[in-house]
C-alpha cells in the first residue's frame, strides 16, 4: 500500500500543479496549492511507514504552515479585490511587462 499511496500522491500533486498553471481565479489557484500540500503530506505519511514517526511530525508542521499561508494569502486576495474589484489574475498587471 505504500507504493500505491506514493503513486496517488504524485497524481494529486500533478493535478494541483496543473490547476495552478491553468486556472485564472486567484482563490482556485490557492485551493490547488492546498492540493499540492496535501499530496506532499500523503507522501510524508507513506514514507513514515518506512522511516519511522518523524514523517508524521513533519506533516504536523506542514499543516500549520498551510493554515498560516491560507490566512495571509486570503488577506492579500481581499486587499487586492478592494483595489481591482476582481480576483482574476489576468487583471493584475501592475508588475507585469
Amino acid at each position: 500500500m505504500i507504493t500505491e499511496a506514493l503513486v496517488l500522491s504524485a497524481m494529486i500533486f500533478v493535478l494541483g500543479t496543473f490547476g495552478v498553471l491553468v486556472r485564472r481565479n486567484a482563490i482556485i489557484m490557492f485551493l490547488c496549492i492546498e492540493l499540492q500540500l496535501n499530496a506532499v503530506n500523503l507522501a510524508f505519511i507513506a514514507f513514515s511507514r518506512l522511516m519511522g514517526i518523524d514523517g508524521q511530525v513533519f506533516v504536523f508542521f506542514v499543516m500549520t504552515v498551510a493554515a498560516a499561508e491560507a490566512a495571509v494569502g486570503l488577506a492579500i486576495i481581499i486587499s487586492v479585490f478592494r483595489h481591482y474589484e476582481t480576483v482574476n489574475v489576468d487583471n493584475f498587471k501592475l508588475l507585469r511587462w
Partner: protein
Amino acid sequence: MIEVLFYVFAAVALGGALGVVWAKSPVGSLLYMVATLASLACIFVLLEAHFLAAIQVIVYAGAIMVLFLFVIMLLNLGHDYQWDLKGGAFSLLSFVIIGLMAGVLVRQFGENAITEPTAGGRAIDAALAQHGAVGAIAQSLYTTYVVPFEITGVLLLVAIVGALVLAKKGGR
C-alpha cells in the same frame, strides 16, 4: 479488505482533485476539495496516522476550507460561472510536461515496489501500541522537535498579525 478501501478512497480523492481543477464556480471547487481532504484523511487512517487524520478533518476540512468559503462569500464570487481556464496550447503543453514528470515518478515507484513490512512501520506500530495515537507523535514532537514546535507558534502569531494588517480597510 484494507486494499479495497484504499482504492475506493484513492478514487474519491482523485475525482475530487479533478473536480477542484475543472469546476466552474469557486464554491463547487471548494466542495470537491472537501471531498478530497476527507478521503485523504481516510487514507491517513489506513496508513496508521490516526492523529493526523483527525487533524486533517478538523483543521483542513473544518477551519481552512471554511475560511476559503468565508472569503468567497465576502467577495460575492459564488455566481462567478465564467470559464477561466487559460486556453488551448498552453494548457495542453503544461499538462503534457507535468504528466511526463508524473510518469517518471510512477515508474520509479513501480520498479521499487514495497510489499513486506519494514523497520519504520514496525517501529510506528510499537509506538502506537505503547503510547497510543496521540502519544506516539507527541513523544517525538515535544523532545526532538521542540524548537521547531515553538518557532511554529511564533509563525502563527506573525501570520495572524500579518493577515489583520493586510485585510484592514484602508491599510497601508
